[in-house]
């Protein structure tokens, strides 16, 4: 055997692949046969979809509450928002329970309230927000005559449910449902998520609001209802929210640094660059600037909605790749880069 073959040196200038990583001088990273040192989350498609509709519900409630507080009384907007939030808050727990390993034990989530556990905070927020949203939607349904006209129950619902008070009470809880989806990811050992703890909640919240505004304008456009001013406000808010979202995504990428690599991997890049950066940010923003038209608004809404979903899939899939990469985790947990207790905040 020649010296070259034994030492695993380069041949013809190219590194010779070695069976034993340790004998390959090209490899600097130490690990155990490339076996991931941490385990990725098992989450299947239900979770990114929940993140999407949860953010949508939170954003819709936020917009309608702000409209209400500013005295902008548009019955069509309130109706669309109330029923949207109700449907998202019915679907969210179904998706989450579906994803459990033991779905029949879902009520154990209500066994304790742990402020240190993002998952526990999320469960309780969903419970509170979902019930308040249910009451608000019930009042809306009574007003719309869906509970029958001239019946005691419907009249009691309209009279007894304090619309404004409940909307304001539900606002912080709802916003927490939207942002906590991001914080829930960052409170793990997965390098890509954990590194971005500062912007994870904000970026999910901004993206959720963007999908909510798109959804509301889509509904109002398709049903040809709502005041002209509502649509104008929705478009304006949507443009501003997309800008905030874009800034937060750039900040996230800067913060993630080398651990953002999974977002640009072959598997995730269509979702992240194609779906998120182009589909949810650039294209809707371009469509919403300039002369407004119904067709353009509908296309922008659809793009932002699909893009928001792709953003969630990109983050979850990227996190899986990040967790499976020993090099990423070991460089992350090597000291300087890992979040340390003395970090500010």
């Amino acid at each position: 055997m020649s010296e070259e073959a034994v030492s695993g040196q380069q041949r013809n200038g190219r590194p010779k692949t070695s069976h034993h990583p340790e004998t390959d001088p090209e490899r600097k990273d130490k690990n155990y046969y490339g076996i991931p040192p941490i385990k990725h989350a098992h989450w299947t498609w239900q979770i990114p979809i929940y993140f999407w509709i949860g953010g949508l519900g939170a954003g819709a409630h936020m917009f309608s509450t702000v409209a209400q507080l500013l005295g902008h009384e548009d019955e069509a907007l309130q109706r669309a928002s109330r029923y949207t939030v109700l449907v998202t808050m019915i679907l969210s727990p179904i998706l989450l329970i579906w994803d459990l390993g033991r779905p029949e034990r879902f009520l154990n989530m209500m066994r304790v309230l742990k402020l240190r556990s993002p998952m526990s905070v999320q469960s309780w927020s969903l419970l509170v927000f979902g019930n308040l949203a249910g009451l608000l939607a019930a009042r809306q349904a009574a007003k719309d005559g869906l509970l029958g006209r001239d019946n005691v129950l419907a009249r009691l619902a309209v009279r007894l449910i304090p619309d404004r008070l409940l909307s304001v009470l539900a606002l912080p809880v709802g916003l927490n449902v939207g942002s906590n989806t991001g914080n829930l990811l960052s409170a793990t050992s997965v390098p890509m998520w954990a590194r971005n703890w500062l912007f994870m909640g904000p970026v999910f919240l901004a993206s959720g609001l963007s999908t909510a505004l798109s959804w509301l304008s889509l509904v109002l456009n398709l049903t040809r209802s709502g005041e002209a001013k509502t649509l104008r406000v929705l478009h304006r808010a949507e443009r501003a929210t997309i800008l905030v979202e874009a800034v937060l995504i750039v900040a996230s990428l800067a913060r993630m640094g080398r651990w953002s690599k999974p977002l640009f991997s072959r598997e995730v890049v269509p979702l992240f660059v194609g779906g998120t950066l182009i589909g949810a940010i650039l294209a809707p923003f371009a469509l919403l600037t300039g002369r407004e038209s119904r067709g353009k608004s509908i296309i922008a809404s659809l793009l932002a909605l699909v893009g928001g979903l792709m953003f969630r899939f990109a983050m979850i899939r990227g996190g899986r790749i990040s967790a499976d990469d020993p090099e990423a985790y070991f460089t992350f947990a090597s000291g300087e880069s890992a979040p340390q207790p003395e970090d500010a905040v």
Partner: protein
Amino acid sequence: MATGFLTDTTVCIGCKACEVACKQWNQLPADGYEFTGDSYDNTKQLSGSTWRHVAFIENPKKRRLTGDVDLVALAEDVTEQLPGGAELDALGRWAFMSDVCKHCVEAPCQQACPTGSIIRNEFDNVYIQPDICNGCGYCVPACPYGVITQVPEDGRAFKCTLCYDRQRDGLEPACAKACPTNSIMFGDVEDLKELAEQRVAELHNKGYTQAYVYGTPEVGGTGGIGGNHSKFILMDEPETYNLPKHPFLPQEKFRGGVIASAVAATVLGAVVAWAFKD
């Protein structure tokens, strides 16, 4: 009293008796016949059905043998100059390490658990109550050591219980009982810590200056975890054994994230309110 393990990798012979004893006592299912092709270790990693895992770390040296080689000296890793120009750096080292749940002082899995299924029991061990776990799987990415894992067939998460049932009956855990070289030691955490320091000092005296204790707050326990109740005596960098150098408590940043989100929510609320301005 807090109990824990001390795993001295320097005397581990890689017999995997601990793996077998753990599987037998805890009635864990087989993992199938997998062939890694990497080493003789075909268990690969800890999982919901493997609570002890012996890693086989092959560290072949890079230079080839020259001259008249004394194989006995070679095997004993004698480092002094040998007659006949023999060079001793060829066999390398074949290290073994019996990995197990670290039973962190501030356990990330316990903090992540939304049902309160993961608790600290009376022996101060991190214990999953199987009748409460609903299989949300959030503890899995929280663990900085990749120990706790969901079993797909069962739905729930499992890991080393530190043989809670045996401890209650005054017995030592099955793996420690089965270990033929006393590489796995079980006992009071404070005693084990002292024992570990003694052993490391002894190794240093023998010339193995690379030996150290992993799982103390100083090494491999920073970032809020506060050390481990399962300590290890290691001879190489932690990454060689698939362990992180500085594991951290993921929940440490949750509060910061919530504050950042509240700021973002205020900004977005202001943006929406601005949009209403005529």
